């Protein structure tokens, strides 16, 4: 069992609820324990940096200070939280004035941060700590024949984290392949969905989402496997009908957050995988897999045993 401090981020309590539920469902089978921070508050995300940078870094630092007390790596599924938590860590190392202001603010509420927390994205944890081979060995329902476009989005890989390519990452396709699915070519996999401005610049965001859906469909994808970012998942899933309305298109692409497709492959049912929370229902597409008999022993395990 591996232990992590866990920061879900605000969206996971609302639009990201199905992604969150699926993460909790696969944690145990993947031997990871996500220990949610107590009384956590918003990280500020990018909009708060557009209001006041020092205050933004201070509220991000509150999350880091809470995580530091646990002595564990801090894992988040939200790409926006991931980027800003990383940024606060980096900026406070270089900018002593900022570090002092944040320190004073934290001290005023009895907190302290020494800059030791390692911030990690849950997809990276699944890829590096669980590992694709171990994941493949746990598969009870191979997703054979399912053509998927794997979408990383922007902030999971940018600005710079050193885990994977910043513009043409590969993690999700490798994870999907480990589950038996067939990743299709998807050139726009690390382009932005625009969801940070989907409320105020709806048309612009719909244009970006339309490009992504079109690119996935043109390459033969039957579904999108999205990163765990609740903003990406909601943009592609819940806004799909709005895209169809604006562009007179007929997309009906289920958007499976990566923990959802992992859950199905591990043998969990439709509800456990939180697929009933998806606006574009994947029930029809996944029914051959969901109805397939769960292999008593996964093929890879058999090979290892044999």
């Amino acid at each position: 069992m591996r232990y992590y401090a866990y920061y879900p981020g605000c969206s996971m309590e609302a639009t990201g609820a199905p992604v969150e539920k699926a993460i909790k469902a696969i944690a145990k089978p993947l031997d990871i324990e996500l220990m949610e921070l107590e009384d956590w508050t918003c990280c500020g995300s990018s909009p708060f940096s557009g209001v006041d940078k020092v205050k933004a870094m201070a509220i991000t630092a509150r999350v880091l200070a809470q995580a530091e007390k646990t002595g564990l790596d801090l894992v988040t599924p939200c790409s926006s939280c991931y980027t800003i938590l990383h940024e606060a860590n980096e900026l406070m190392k270089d900018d002593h004035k900022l570090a002092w202001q944040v320190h004073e603010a934290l001290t005023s509420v009895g907190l302290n941060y020494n800059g030791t927390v390692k911030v990690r994205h849950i997809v990276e944890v699944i890829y590096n700590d669980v590992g694709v081979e171990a994941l493949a060995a746990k598969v009870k329902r191979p997703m054979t024949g399912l053509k998927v476009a794997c979408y990383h989005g922007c902030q999971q890989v940018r600005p710079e984290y050193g885990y994977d390519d910043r513009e043409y990452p590969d993690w999700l396709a490798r994870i999907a392949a480990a589950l038996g699915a067939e990743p299709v070519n998807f050139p726009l996999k690390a382009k932005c969905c625009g969801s940070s401005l989907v409320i105020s610049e709806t048309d612009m965001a719909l244009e970006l989402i339309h490009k992504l859906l079109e690119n996935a469909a043109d390459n033969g994808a039957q579904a999108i496997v999205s990163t765990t970012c609740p903003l990406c998942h909601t943009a592609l899933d819940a806004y799909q009908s709005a895209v169809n309305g604006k562009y007179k298109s007929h997309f009906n692409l289920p958007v499976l957050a990566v923990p959802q497709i992992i859950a199905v492959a591990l043998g969990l049912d439709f509800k456990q995988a939180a697929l009933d929370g998806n606006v574009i229902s994947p029930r029809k597409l996944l029914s051959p897999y969901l109805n397939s008999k769960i292999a008593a022993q996964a093929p890879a395990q058999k090979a290892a045993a044999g």
Partner: protein
Amino acid sequence: METKLKPSFLDEVASIPACGKINECVQCGVCSGSCTTAAHWEHPPRKIIAMVRAGMKDEVLNSSSIWYCVSCYLCTARCPRDIKPANIMHALEAIALKENYRPPTKTTTMYRSFARSIEQNGRIYEFGFMLEYFLKTNPFAALKMLPMAFSLLTHKRMPLLPKAVKGRHQLNQMFHNITTGGSR
């Protein structure tokens, strides 16, 4: 006679965390060429940086351009001088809000509603924050969003009540500490 030294617009921007390297920009244009939303910018990122360095404060802050940044960080990942254009755009947004500029964009209202949601609840209360935004901009635009909101509601993805956490008191205390200049 007393002479007051007023920091230039460039100094003001460069003093904001993550923006210190703005002087090292070589105007190569990789940021504008990479920008996901450049087509919507009256002045694309490279030009904004040039305008800041030329001291064109009112022109920069009265324009809607910077408000189209979606924080995708392509510019920042590619910048050969490591000047972090996305951070500069957010720094400019913060100056515009603080000094009450009124650029023709609704994103200013969205950001203010977002920040208020954090102050009030400690976490983002998505439904409340969107409601406030639409009431302040164009309540009729909210009608267009109704089908989507309804589908999120029926899929249990849009709680109607906020979940105010205790930590919000700490956040507000921290904000107060920063506004008043800390313990000094």
